[in-house]
């Protein structure tokens, strides 16, 4: 009789689900979860970003510069209009770079010409004119003049222009060159910086209509 009871108890135990057994021997542990917060950088550039944009200067040329028809507030072209070779001009509020990033190391903004200045109407010979030491940039300031210290733009040498004359930007094999840096910061958040452009026209420049695309690239640190 006892044997029968023992066998019946074993049969009942065998039928019990395993969790029930586990509950009888509780155990604790920890799981390590690693995750990465991917840094992101978003950027936009607004030409003619503030009321009062447009060219000034041309001292001694005998003419007063006026903004060209391609410029509109918060968009369009940085259009100096008619300028006289051999003189200097300042284009106020030419472009504002807006950056949003969660990268706590900050970011660097680079700017280069997609090409040299492309001449047309009439097409000069050669068809391009060096961007270097013709078009300059400086951080916007109400006190800026055509003679304020500024840094020259370069046309890209390490990147490949995309689209006609670089209208779609520049493809870089890595980052743009350090010499093209225009803004560097070590903070995250939503930040903006505005720029004026300067034209310093050599007397040797041919008379023509010139165009160029300035490409801004933002790289997280």
């Amino acid at each position, binding site marked *: 009789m006892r044997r029968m009871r023992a066998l019946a108890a074993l049969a009942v135990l065998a039928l019990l689900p395993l969790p029930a057994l586990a509950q009888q021997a509780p155990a604790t542990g920890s799981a*390590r979860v*690693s995750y*990465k*917060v*991917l*840094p*992101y*950088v978003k*950027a*936009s*550039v607004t030409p003619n970003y503030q009321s009062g944009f447009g060219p000034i200067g041309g*001292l*001694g040329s*005998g*003419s007063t510069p006026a903004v060209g028809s391609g410029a509109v507030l918060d968009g*369009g072209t*940085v*259009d*100096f*209009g*008619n*300028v*006289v*070779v*051999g*003189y*200097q001009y300042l284009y106020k509020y*030419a*472009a504002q770079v807006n*950056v949003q*990033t969660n990268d706590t190391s900050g970011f660097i903004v680079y700017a280069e010409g*997609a090409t040299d200045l492309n001449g047309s109407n009439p097409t000069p010979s050669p068809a391009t004119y060096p961007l270097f*030491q013709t*078009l300059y940039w400086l951080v916007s300031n109400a006190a800026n003049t055509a*003679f*304020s*210290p*500024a840094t020259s733009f370069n046309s890209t040498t390490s990147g490949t222009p995309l689209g006609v004359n670089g*209208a779609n*930007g520049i493809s870089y094999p890595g*980052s743009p060159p350090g010499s093209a840096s225009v803004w560097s910061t070590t903070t995250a958040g939503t930040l903006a910086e505005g720029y004026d*452009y300067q034209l*310093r026209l*050599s*007397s*040797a*420049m*041919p*008379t*023509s*209509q*010139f*165009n160029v*695309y*300035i*490409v*801004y*690239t*933002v*790289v997280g640190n």
Partner: protein
Amino acid sequence: MRGRHLVALLGLAAVAALAMFSQADALQSNRAYKYVVLTVVITPSPAPVGFLKPATHGAAIADAGGGVRPPATGALAFVATAPSASVAQLAADPFATPVQLASAGTAWDVAPGLAPFELAQAQAQPTPVPVQFVAKADPNAQYIHTIPHTGELDAGYGSNTYTCAFEIYTYYTTAYTLTDWGYGTTKSGSGTYPVLNYPSTSDLAWQVPDLSSTVHAYSNSGSPGETTWTGTAGEKQQHCFNLTLTVPATEPAGTYTATIQYNLMTN
């Protein structure tokens, strides 16, 4: 009656003489003017060079691994930097603290023990900014124009020279004088580096080797400035300008601008 006429004639002659000689300069007018804009970039001096100080004889040496070993006999003892505790910490547990880095697809943010590898960086390239202008001919170019050769003067501390930094061409149908002064300078005041303002002496100087070996500090007291050269009626001239820039030790590294106004004064 005759005497009165004589006195009147003498008076007229005196006035004419005064007008010709005393006011000769005032008769010249500024036919055209140009600006030469020079960007000066001062590069910083190298960082101060330190040296390893020999430790006193018998001093213990801290090695790179954080240990301290006794100095070798007869060898120089060097004071090394203290080892970083974070190095050992990182080696033991690279994930001890959160590290926010872009991943290159590996299990580790920065794999320990491996050679350096390139991390992908977040990039953004907004729509490019189109820039446009229509360059028109300069009506004054036949009388005066500038030919830049060195738009940017890269300078170190001390004296820097630039050969034929730019050229100027002048011509006019009558006798003329080319004058110059630092743009924006006044009779007396304060100006920015490098041209400064009288009574300070400009740190930028010029020389026209075709005409003279004399080096002139740029005039920096506004109009009428100094005479650069003179020309006879119909004379065409084009000369190189050598520049000398002095960078004092007190001047911070950075970008500066020197703007010189050149004036074609004609009768």
